Every structure is written in structure tokens, then in C-alpha cells.
């Protein structure tokens, strides 16, 4: 086979191959071709998204580490920083959901401790098809199992997450995982290799033929007929190995033994070494014959691109090599000097004495061509209307409420999150279903709140506004806990960007993300892009997943979503302008997606959310919950369910009952409860109507001549609809 044909088979274009030859001044050999094809893959080079990502604001007074390192970080007081990042593992999870999801968690945790932070929490963001389908149930069950297996076993709590069920994810499920870590501000480490003559040490698991060409190739191409052939590349996660790797890495840092640290992710040794060299403006010599192998007879190129999990690279002074290896020994992880830092900015691959590859670092990391997209809005609907499961003739609000509570996107996630250890490390102040965001106590008595959000269906309706909504939904969740946003991470899950309307979705979505972050003054500290999420069934809904971290001064005053005190008043706050198109009710009714969503006044919403978080953190409100999927009545039911208590409310007459009760406008309406004085005080800062009182064991809502009365038991019954998925 001609080299150019091999390059094409490995995913390079003809022009890219020609450019590789030009950079090398010759044709690449086998090792070089393998390394270039991965380094220049979409997954590693971000060639279709890099230019767009430059719009995202990444500055702010609290920023400790911005995009470009393995994870970003913000300062959280008392000399601590909080690192966080979200990453996708979509394609591996579609092939083998348990191991795919597990290794996704393993990968994002390594990104966190690669910068020297101890992982303190995980969140997951999942998208699957219709839960009635056997395939979806299999994927979901195994993905949740895999996330739990990894997180639980390594001792990092999974404190939150989200899952949506929508048709377009049927053949392309999404599995995104977010991790957070805590470090002393002076304890962070970067990945830039430096110090000519310093030693390069590989430590962790032995290298096998795992996922050769796997993640990078999988994540850079549409899933097609040949999936089966890609299967032998399944990587198995070993959380026990990672636990030792984590403790070993942090001990090495604690002892001040490291110059640079980097995890091995997609493209294995190739990308980790090239990135370290590039950031440090140095070169690296790597002797693949020194890499501890799990399988005999591996070729140099296989060693360079293997995606075996649970491995790290570090740079250390020759004088401290022995000390580094001793720490590795203590934690029972292989530690091996595999190379050294060189002056000339070249990545040289040696196999013993033989030179088997020689590539300019710049060519590998910086010279992959970046492409401009050719966005064009679709002229007809891209997605079919969802199937109708609730007839338009059903107009009784009680019946609609119960149908919504039982619908897959709203029903309780308890059967999922009970499979996750949410309390290990003794920081969890708010667990799942106790509040709108997870809350973790911080060393100085304060706390952070974390939320992850992004409704692909709404982004499909309107990529710009839908993405703004995802950000505001996140900040609303934080506000309900009393937290002010500090920083944002994101994972952009989209279809094939070479297609004009996918390019348009991506462009509009990033524009929305940038505008929202700027208006809210929240820096984007990092993220990930997952493209080509398409299959025979068409593209996924465009799905930007937004993860956000906020802070509150007093952990003891973290907000709750559930009604807490019988006799307290219930109020509704915020400039809420609900609409039905694109809502969960519209979905249940099988309505077409609208081609736009009502624009949001970000500044007004920011002010309202500020009023909420100020009131919560002052201890004035006994509960706060934002109105999200399903609208106002569903939010009220959720407050009753979380508090285990009913409420009697009179909304007054309204001209459009269905829109009032079930219309949506993410991030803009809040159900709050508290004493009369407290609500009066909050009402000074934000539109607020008092509707009734907490108490009893029914939710009893009157509006004009309409009245809805539902017992807590009936609410609970409907809300438990997902339980049969996990028999």
C-alpha cells in the first residue's frame, strides 16, 4: 500500500498528507504516520472548532488556570483552587457502554490530578434514546454501572449529573463526565517539559494494544457499518490502578519531585509527549523499548499510539529519578525512565539504538491545518417531530401534571444516582434531589455548588438561545443553593461539522455560549469538543453541555429545593415569561420543534438570580427551586416531593392556563418559600408573588375556575416512573 493510501485510511486528507511530507521534507515512516494521523485528528487537533473556541472569554479575577492545560481552575479562598473540566466519551460508550463510561470517568479524573489537584467530585451528563427501547435500557444501565464502578471504587463521590432521553440519541448516546479537584494554589503543576537533560518517566499501568486508533479515530469519524471491526479496541478501566496512580502522583508533587506532569489520554504517548514538548518549547527522546508492555511483540508505532488507561508521564531532574521511582514502588505502579528532554524541538522515537521516528514538535502540535466552517441555517426541519405520547385532547391539568412527572426527562433519577457514592470524602452538603445543584463544603467553612446542564432539544430549536438557556439554567441552579458563579467548563457534542447546518448549529451555539459568559462575567476555564456524533439515523441534537461552579460563603446556609417548614409562605419570583413551543409538554404531545425560542434578557435574569442567591445565602429563604422542564406546576410538585409536604396555592386567574402551568423559560422563574417577612424582603429585589402556604399532604393549586388537587402519594408514584428501568 502506498503511504498516501495508508494516510487516507488513517483519516488524513490528501492535502494534510502532503503537508506532513512538506513538514518532514520526506514521506513519513510507519511510526511517524501513526503519530501524525492521531495528532492531526479532529480529537487532538480541534481542526474544525479551534477558531470558533477563540470567541470564548477566559479571563476573570478568580481564574487560576485557563484553557490549554489539562483542566482549568478558579480560586476558592483560603489559598485553595478548584480545578474542573468536562469531557466526552461518547463513541467508546456507544460501543461498550460499561467500559466506555468507566474509562471516560478515569480519563477526566486523570486530567484533574495531572494539574496537581485531588479529585473531589464527579458529575455525569448522559443522553440516550427512548427508554422504552431495549437497546437504550441496555446502554443506560451499563453506562451508569460503569460510571459508578469507576467513581465508587476510586473513592471520588459522584454528586450530580443529568440525563435526557430523546430520539436523536438512540444510535448516538452521549456520555460526558465532569470532574472537580481541589489543590493548594501553590500546588498546581503544568505539563510543559523543561530542563534539557531531565528525565522523562512513564508511570502507571503497563502498555497493551488497548484502543489502538480507538478514541481518536472513533471520536473523529461517524459511526458506520464497520463499527464491529473497531470493537477489538475496547479499553478496560482499572479504577484500582488509577487510585494508586492518583496517590502516587500527588505524593510525587507533595514531595516537590516533579518538573512537569501530564496524563496519557487519547493518542497515548504520542500526544502527551508532543504536548509536553510543545508547551515547554523543547524536544523529547523516547525509547519505546523501555516502555513496560502487557503484551509481547508490540511494534514501536503501537506503543506510541496505545491508549492503555491509567498511565502518566512526568519530567524530573536526573538527581531525583531514584526518589520518583521509590514513590512509584511504594504505590505499586510501574515507573520507568523512557527518555529525556532535549534542546532541539524534535520528538525522536527510539527503539533501543535504532531511530524509528523523528518529527518536529511544532509540526505535530501546531501545524495541523485549521478549517473554517461553512455554516448555513437549515431550510427545513432537521429533526422529526417527537412521537406523540399524550393526546391533544388531554387538557385536565392534573392529568398533564402526572404525565409530565412520569415522563422520562422529568421522572426522578433516584434509580440512577443511588448507584453512585455521593458522600465519600465527607464534603457533600447537598446530595442529589436535596437541592438544584450539588454542594460541597470547602476547607474554610464556605462551600461550592456545581451544576451541569444542557437540553439538546432546545438547542435544536434555536442553537443560540438554547445555549444561552443552558448557561442560565446552570446559574439558576447555583443561585437556588446560594451560590454565585465562578467559572464554566463545557463539552460541545455535535454532528459532522463539515455539513453546513451542523456547522451553523456549532457556530450559533458557541456564539450563544460566548455571549452568555460575557454578560454573566463567567470565564470559560476549559472544555472539550466531540464532533461527528451521527449515524444512519441522522445527527444528534446539538448538545452543548455546560458545567458550572459557584461559591457561597457559608456551607451551613446552602439552599434546598424542597418545601421545608409547614406554615411558611410560597412565592414565585423572577421575570418569568413562559412559552409552550419546545417544552416538555409540547414534546409529549408530539409537536414539531419550533424554529426559534423567545430571546432572553440575560442582564435582567442575572439581576433576578442575584436576588435569589443573596436571599438564600443570607438564610432568608427556607427553600428555592428554579422552574425548568415541565414548567411551574411541575416545579411546585418537585418542591412538595423533595420536602415531603404539600401546599395550598391560589395563582389567581390567568388568560392562558396551560402556558402558565406548563410553559418553560429556563433560568428565569423560582419557587421560593419562607416567612412572610423574608418573602417581603426578597420582593423588594425581584418580582415576587405570594401564592399560598406550605402544609398538608396534597398539592392543591387553584387558578381562576381551574383547580388541581394531587396527593403526595400520587405525585410520588408518577415521579418514580424510571424505577422499572433498573429492575
Amino acid at each position, binding site marked *: 500500500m502506498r503511504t498516501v493510501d495508508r494516510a487516507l485510511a488513517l483519516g488524513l486528507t490528501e492535502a494534510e498528507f502532503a503537508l506532513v511530507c512538506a513538514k518532514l521534507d520526506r514521506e513519513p515512516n510507519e511510526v511517524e504516520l501513526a503519530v501524525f494521523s492521531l495528532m492531526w485528528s479532529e480529537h487532538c487537533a480541534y481542526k474544525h472548532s479551534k477558531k470558533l473556541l477563540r470567541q470564548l472569554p477566559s479571563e476573570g479575577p478568580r481564574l487560576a488556570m485557563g484553557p490549554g492545560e489539562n483542566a482549568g481552575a478558579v480560586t476558592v479562598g483560603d489559598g485553595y483552587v478548584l480545578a474542573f473540566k468536562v469531557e466526552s466519551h461518547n463513541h467508546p460508550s456507544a*460501543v*461498550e457502554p460499561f*467500559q466506555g463510561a468507566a474509562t471516560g470517568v478515569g480519563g477526566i479524573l486523570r486530567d484533574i490530578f495531572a494539574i496537581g489537584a485531588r479529585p473531589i467530585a464527579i458529575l455525569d451528563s448522559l443522553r440516550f434514546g427512548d427508554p422504552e427501547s431495549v437497546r437504550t435500557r441496555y446502554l443506560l444501565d451499563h453506562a451508569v454501572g460503569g460510571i459508578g464502578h469507576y467513581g465508587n471504587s476510586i473513592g471520588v463521590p459522584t454528586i450530580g449529573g443529568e440525563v435526557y432521553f430523546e430520539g436523536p440519541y438512540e444510535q448516538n448516546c452521549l456520555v460526558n463526565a465532569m470532574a472537580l479537584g481541589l489543590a493548594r494554589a501553590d500546588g498546581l503543576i503544568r505539563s510543559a517539559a523543561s530542563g534539557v537533560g531531565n528525565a522523562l518517566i512513564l508511570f502507571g*499501568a503497563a502498555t*497493551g*494494544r*488497548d484502543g489502538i486508533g480507538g478514541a481518536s479515530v472513533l471520536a473523529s469519524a461517524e459511526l458506520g457499518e464497520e463499527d464491529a471491526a473497531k*470493537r*477489538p479496541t*475496547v*479499553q*478496560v478501566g*482499572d479504577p*484500582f*490502578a488509577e487510585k494508586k496512580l492518583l496517590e502516587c502522583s500527588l505524593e510525587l508533587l507533595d514531595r516537590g519531585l516533579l518538573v512537569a506532569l501530564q496524563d496519557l489520554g487519547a493518542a497515548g504517548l504520542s500526544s502527551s509527549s508532543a504536548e509536553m514538548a510543545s508547551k515547554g518549547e523543547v524536544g523529547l527522546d523516547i525509547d519505546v523499548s523501555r516502555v513496560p508492555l*502487557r*503484551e509481547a511483540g508490540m511494534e514501536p508505532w503501537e506503543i506510541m499510539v496505545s491508549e*492503555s*488507561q491509567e498511565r502518566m508521564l512526568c519530567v524530573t531532574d536526573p538527581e531525583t529519578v531514584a526518589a520518583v521511582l521509590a514513590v512509584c514502588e511504594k504505590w505499586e505502579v510501574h515507573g520507568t525512565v523512557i527518555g529525556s528532554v532535549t534542546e532541539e524541538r524534535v520528538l525522536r522515537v527510539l527503539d533501543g539504538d535504532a531511530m524509528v521516528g523523528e518529527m518536529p514538535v511544532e509540526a505535530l502540535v501546531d501545524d495541523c491545518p485549521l478549517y473554517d466552517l461553512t455554516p448555513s441555517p437549515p431550510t427545513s426541519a432537521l429533526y422529526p417531530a417527537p412521537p406523540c405520547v399524550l393526546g391533544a385532547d388531554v387538557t385536565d391539568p392534573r392529568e398533564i401534571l402526572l404525565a409530565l412527572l412520569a415522563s422520562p426527562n422529568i421522572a426522578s433519577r433516584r434509580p440512577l444516582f443511588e448507584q453512585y457514592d455521593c458522600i465519600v470524602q465527607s464534603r457533600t452538603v447537598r446530595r442529589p434531589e436535596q437541592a438544584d445543584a450539588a454542594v460541597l463544603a470547602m476547607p474554610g467553612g464556605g462551600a461550592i455548588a456545581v451544576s451541569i446542564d444542557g437540553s439538546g432539544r432546545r438547542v435544536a430549536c434555536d442553537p443560540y438561545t438554547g445555549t444561552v438557556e443552558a448557561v442560565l439554567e446552570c446559574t439558576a441552579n447555583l443561585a437556588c443553593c446560594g451560590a454565585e458563579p465562578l467559572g464554566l467548563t463545557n463539552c460541545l457534542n455535535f454532528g459532522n461539522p463539515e455539513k453546513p447546518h451542523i456547522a451553523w448549529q456549532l457556530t450559533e451555539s458557541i456564539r450563544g455560549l460566548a455571549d452568555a459568559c460575557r454578560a454573566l462575567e463567567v470565564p470559560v476555564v476549559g472544555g472539550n469538543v466531540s464532533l461527528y456524533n451521527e449515524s444512519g439515523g441522522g445527527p444528534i441534537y446539538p448538545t452543548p453541555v455546560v458545567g458550572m461552579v459557584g461559591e457561597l460563603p457559608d456551607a451551613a446556609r446552602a439552599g434546598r429545593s424542597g418545601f421545608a417548614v409547614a406554615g411558611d409562605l410560597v412565592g414565585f419570583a423572577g421575570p418569568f415569561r413562559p412559552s409552550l413551543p419546545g417544552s416538555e409538554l409540547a414534546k409529549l404531545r408530539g409537536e414539531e420543534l419550533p424554529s426559534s425560542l423567545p430571546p432572553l434578557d440575560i442582564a435582567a435574569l442575572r439581576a433576578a438570580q442575584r436576588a435569589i442567591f443573596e436571599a438564600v445565602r443570607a438564610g432568608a429563604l427556607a427553600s428555592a427551586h428554579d422552574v425548568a422542564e415541565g414548567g411551574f406546576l411541575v416545579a411546585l410538585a418537585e418542591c412538595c416531593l423533595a420536602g415531603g409536604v404539600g401546599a395550598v396555592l391560589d395563582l389567581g386567574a390567568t388568560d392562558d392556563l396551560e402556558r402558565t402551568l406548563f410553559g418553560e423559560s429556563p433560568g428565569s422563574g423560582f419557587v421560593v418559600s419562607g416567612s412572610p417577612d423574608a418573602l417581603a424582603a426578597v420582593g423588594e429585589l425581584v418580582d415576587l408573588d405570594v401564592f399560598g402556604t406550605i402544609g398538608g399532604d396534597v398539592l392543591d393549586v387553584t387558578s381562576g375556575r381551574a383547580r388541581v388537587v394531587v396527593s403526595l402519594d400520587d405525585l410520588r408514584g408518577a415521579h418514580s416512573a424510571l424505577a422499572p428501568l433498573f429492575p
Partner: protein
Amino acid sequence: MTRARVLVRPKAGILDPQGVAVERALPALGFSGVANVHVGRLIELDVEDPSQLQAMCEKLLVNPLIEDYEILEDASA
């Protein structure tokens, strides 16, 4: 009824952390000269129609992406 056993093991080349753990533990207990340890699953069942066993393995009992299997029929009967 035929008593059958299905032996399921990690595919060659796939990481087998359990096997590694056992291989490490044995020498510490004074058992030397042990190698190539792999840990898998054993499924024992009575079947009316043993010709269905292969299909059962492929559909449910085994994850063909990461596991190999072997069927032992009438093993103990």
C-alpha cells in the same frame, strides 16, 4: 435436561485487572511458580436444548467485545 457450563474469560489482549491481582497475591502467600492468571465467570445451567447454548452466550451470557467463551456440556451429570 442437559447440565451445561459456560466458561467466560477475558479476551486475549484485554486488560484483566482481577487476574493481575490474583497473580500478585499468590506469591505473597507462599505459592510460587504461578503465571498467566485470568479471572472470568462460570455459568452453570440446565438446558432442554443444548443447541441453543451458543445463541444464549452470544445474546446474553457473554460480552463478545471483551470476552471469549467455551461451552462444556453435560459436564457433571
